[in-house]
């Protein structure tokens, strides 16, 4: 699924990496508030949906080779997180939706989850 389509489905606002969005296409979704949950999953071409607003969300995505981060529940990421996303060339966007709604919509539109690393 195109990142642009995801942004539109989630009525999301882009905070970083606007110029990179058109080139990104993903098929998996990591949804988690615990970064170790994300880090414990296997590698996949995916985005991260989280309620974490501090720079650790961006660090985690960077370390785990995740393509983009979406912060849910209408939260505003910390300024340091936005700056880090820009520095790491990682698209970051926010939505007012809760994680449940966001996941449901993306699942219905074809995204799938990521298996745990064994």
């Amino acid at each position, binding site marked *: 699924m195109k990142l642009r389509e995801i942004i539109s489905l989630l009525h999301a606002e882009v905070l970083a990496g606007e110029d990179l969005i058109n080139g990104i296409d993903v098929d998996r979704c990591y949804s988690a508030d615990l970064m170790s949950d994300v880090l414990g999953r296997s590698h996949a071409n995916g985005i991260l949906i989280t*309620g974490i607003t501090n720079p650790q969300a961006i660090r985690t995505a960077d370390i785990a080779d995740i393509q983009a981060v979406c912060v849910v529940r209408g939260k505003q990421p910390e300024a340091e997180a936005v700056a880090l996303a820009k520095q790491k060339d990682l698209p970051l966007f926010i939505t007012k939706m*809760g994680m449940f709604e966001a996941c449901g919509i*993306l699942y219905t539109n074809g995204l799938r*989850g990521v298996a745990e690393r064994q």
Partner: protein
Amino acid sequence: MKLRDLVAEFGLTVKTGAGHLDNEVTGGYVSDLLSDVLAHAEDGNLWVTLHIHHNIVAVAAHTSLAGIVLIQGRVPDQDTIAKAEEEGIPIMVSDLSAFELVGRLYKAGIRGAEAL
């Protein structure tokens, strides 16, 4: 939809609160941040989390949730089970990841507490 229907449809393993499966599910909430659950989850929501700590029972009781589903086969702590039985909070377990479980619940008609 009742908890009982979801247990059957999604093959959930009931760990506690088997006597409360007639609880009506008003919507879903998925989070591992207890403060977010306290702030945003609504009465009768089904809470999806991977926390197994007994704090989850207090949160569920406080917000009058319909029940808790632990994801990817997580096993609740002994004191979590004891506390949940005491409070009458159903705890169920699914083998799926949060994304996969929530996706399927959504497809079955359960909506998020903070829908736009």
